[in-house]
């Protein structure tokens, strides 16, 4: 049995309560959502927060709904809810495709959107999805609420724009009528972290790509995205040649590091290969195929 170092624990009943508890317990306190990243690190004593502020009872952080032309996902929405959400399935199949390959049902029943975004693991799938869809994060602190583009949300591995005393409360995704989306991932085994993943959305209108987003994870893509590849595609017909050229730009923009999941050249290749596969499917889907 692995045992964490001693810590205090408090259960928050509202966002305001959570912020007050964070303030009370000081800088070494951490919020806990699903706990599937934080608890293992604590049990290995790689993380040793003084206190955990539990967000699991906060109703206002739950739910998936449409507000105007955005889909709003509460920070405490579980992976399993994303997977089964009719709203997300209707607008962005990328969510279901990604969630099917995130960990396993037990983890998905507990792990949350907010927890995944804030953990900022360089191989996180939802970070790639969020960057692909160009969503925004809603962050609340004592001073009020602010929004940050998901493409600016991550400062680097395990670092985000959420400051001490703040909580991520929502993630918002713009609705794009006619968009096709897809997610492609290579893992060594079901439930493993990505060796590499690519998630994209494409809007094809009048025979050309009018909007698109490319998200990548585990391959050292800056902010989990490939803007140069997106720019290349805009205004071009979604031909195999153009999609491949965009995928090539995306692959070249990555900076993967070798680890036991694979060597860097392989991961760079996957960034290309998986982006191409995702673009093909998303473009077909946008064209009603």
């Amino acid at each position, binding site marked *: 049995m692995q045992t964490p170092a001693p810590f205090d624990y408090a259960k928050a009943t509202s966002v305001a309560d959570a912020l007050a508890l964070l303030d009370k317990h000081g800088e070494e306190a951490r919020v806990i959502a699903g706990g599937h990243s934080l608890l293992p690190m604590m049990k290995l004593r790689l993380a040793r927060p003084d206190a955990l502020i539990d967000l699991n009872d906060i109703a206002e952080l739950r739910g998936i709904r449409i507000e105007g032309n955005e889909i709003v996902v509460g920070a405490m929405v579980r992976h399993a809810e994303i997977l089964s959400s009719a709203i997300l399935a209707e607008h962005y199949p990328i969510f279901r495709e990604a969630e099917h390959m995130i960990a396993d049902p037990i983890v998905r029943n507990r792990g949350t959107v907010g927890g995944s975004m804030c953990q900022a693991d360089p191989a996180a799938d939802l970070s790639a999805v969020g960057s692909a869809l160009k969503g925004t994060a809603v962050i609340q602190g004592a001073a009020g609420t602010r929004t940050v583009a998901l493409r600016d949300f991550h400062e680097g591995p395990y670092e985000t724009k959420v400051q001490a005393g703040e909580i991520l409360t929502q993630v918002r995704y713009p609705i794009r009528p006619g968009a096709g989306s897809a997610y492609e991932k290579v893992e060594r085994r079901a439930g493993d972290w990505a060796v590499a993943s690519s998630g994209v959305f494409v809007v094809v209108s009048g025979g050309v790509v009018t909007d698109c987003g490319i998200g990548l994870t585990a391959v050292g893509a800056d902010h989990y995205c490939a803007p140069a590849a997106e720019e290349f595609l805009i205004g071009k017909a979604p031909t195999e040649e153009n999609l491949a050229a965009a995928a090539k730009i995306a692959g070249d923009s990555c900076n993967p590091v070798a680890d036991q*999941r694979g060597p860097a050249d392989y991961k760079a290749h996957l960034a290309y290969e998986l982006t191409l596969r995702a673009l093909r499917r998303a473009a077909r889907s946008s064209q009603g195929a």
Partner: protein
Amino acid sequence: MTALDEAPLSAAGNPIGFGRMHRKEDVRFLRGEGNYVDDVNLPGMLHSAILRSPYAHARIVSIDTSAALALPGVHAVITGETLAGLGLAWMPTLSYDTQAVLATDKVRFQGQEVAFVIADSRYIAKDALELIDVEYDALPAVVDAKKALDPGAPIIRDDKEGKTDNHIYDWEAGNKADTDAAFAAADVVVTEDILYPRVHPSPMETCGSVAHMDPVTGKLVLYTTTQAPHAHRTVYALVAGLPEHKIQVISPDIGGGFGNKVPIYPGYVCSIVGSIVTGKPVKWVEDRAENLMSTGFARDYHMNVSIASTKEGKILAVKVDVLADHGAFNGVAQPTNYPAGFFHIFTGSYDYPAAYCNVKAVYTNKAPGGVAYACSFRITEAVYAIERIVDCLAAELKMDSAELRLKNLLRPEQFPYTSPTGWEYDSGDYEKTMRVAMDIAGYDELRREQAEKRAKGEYMGIGISFFTEGVGAGPRKHMDILGLGMADGCDLRVHPTGKAQVRLSVQSQGQGHETTFAQIISHELGIPPEDIEVIHGDTDNTPFGLGTYGSRSTPVSGAAAALVGRKVRDKARLIAAAALECSPDDLEWELGRWFVKGDPTRGKTIQEIAFAAHGSLELPEGVEGHLDAQVVYNPPNLTYPYGCYICVVDVDPGTGQVKVRRFIAVDDCGTRINPMIVEGQVHGGLADGIGMALMEVIAFDEDGNNLGGSFMDYLLPTSMECPDWELGETVTPSPHHPIGAKGVGESATVGSPAAIVNAVIDAISPFGVRHADMPLTPANVWRAIQGRPVRTDMAVE
């Protein structure tokens, strides 16, 4: 009666004898009522934790335990220095080497035991570990086995007087001159470097112990995760000088072993010392990372394999040079006369006259071990070597791999067959088994489909493995562990009401012994299996024997159980004759009953006989009362199960991903006592094979850091990677086993990796690939396709 006959059913619906029945033990397991070592809680029990080395190789300059000792709730901190005072800093391994219990001079692998804290709770013990200040002087580590013998390589075992290199032993088998001559005369020679990388058995339950040395009686009761309780008892007596009659080893429910729970680990010894020092029971249970990083790994064989044949594909000879990485201490567990285990059974299932192997074992700065993970004493490595090289030969000859195997398989009339390396295979009809597998697979159709797919640029592969194992160690004359002969006792007591208890030395880790052994007794005596209690795992209450590993339970203790049943049956005959007032010669046995020949209405059931045996019936002279018996079974030979496995995969060359589409396993393990248990064991072993072939490896970086120390890094397969297994069987009984049974617990683990790897290589052979090392992760497959394979046992660069 043979195994193929239907056994009659008991009132509870179980077969009286052999056949399918639910496992008796599953009732408690499914209800969460198992009793594992960590479930043992004794009054006043203390908890413990081990401080482990962060370095692979470093000199210990100093250890300061004062802050840890000062932590409230800490009872004692034991270091190597403490143990040295008791003469226990080092302990013998099962291979006549020594291993540090707690390091004194140096640490020799990452995760090695350095200090032991005893405290009120495991939390406090872990807190105290952080307060122990160890000053290390880091040394360069020997990580690559291929460089272990380089001049100037750091000397790992400078504790051994006069040791000037990292060499452990050289060992050879077969006939070198004959083999060289066969190679010189051959039309075709194929050679390949084949690595069987370091993997880990990873039982669900990690290792642990609860030691209670009673300060008044001087009796040590040790609850411990052991596959071999009796062997452990004797070893503790020999190592610690404890009187053996005052040692009781209890192995309660064991959550998987796979050879991981054969060695004696420093943690066990520390818990004993802890109990002696504190006068209280001390529990030690390692966590997952500790299990992965410090306990017995498996394999780590670097094999250079060569095969010689005629141009028509008749195999003439095989030779193998092995570089064996044993880690920092030679801690492998196998019969003394076989330092490389049974690796020299590598000649496999084929008929050829010449073979030779040389095994060179070296120390490296890695955890000790090597024989584990259902390997049947290194037959896993042997089967992988021969089955991989046969496929390489098929590729070289441009011959179908099934055709090449069929051309060379041993023929039924050759049994008993003496192999070129000296094994005597007991029985087999190999071609029959292979044909059954090919029929289930639809082999010709698969090859046709493959050709069609290739034309379309799709990469499907078909891989075959035909394996032969030798299991059931062993004949006592040839096989011992630390001088303990590998024979097993068995006691049977039939109570007055006809219910029975059978006592065994082997210890189930999930194999279903409580069911299988009841069925064996049931088969011999006609007592329903639900009326037979199997008692095991407690050395005070069971006869001596060497334990469960190497698929030896059924071949050895299973034979003992059958024979003790027959002994009771013979005694029952004498008692029945007395009761029926006739001569024993006039009696005939039918299942569960002796009756008078020619008058079947006059007879006594085994239950009636049991009561009479304990009652007032006048017994013939020389017949003692009661209905009990004991035997010790010394097997005349190993049993030789075999099988043919066929795997079908689809490979995505763009990503290197492998999908195992089908897996056909046809096993011949002789008589099947409970076919459902056999199938369950095969299922588990096939999943092991998927793991080893596709994802499992413990690699190390250049500093000797273990890169497989958690289940995030060391991947075990899930149901998602496993296809619906397609099983078949043939039954060729062992001629020398009382019920014709052979061991089967390890067959699928031994046989399956080669089938999977052969299938993957077959799939990507159009890219010019002839071999790639396990594990065939997507990255490794893609790199192989690129012609730039990676070294899978080292950090990926």
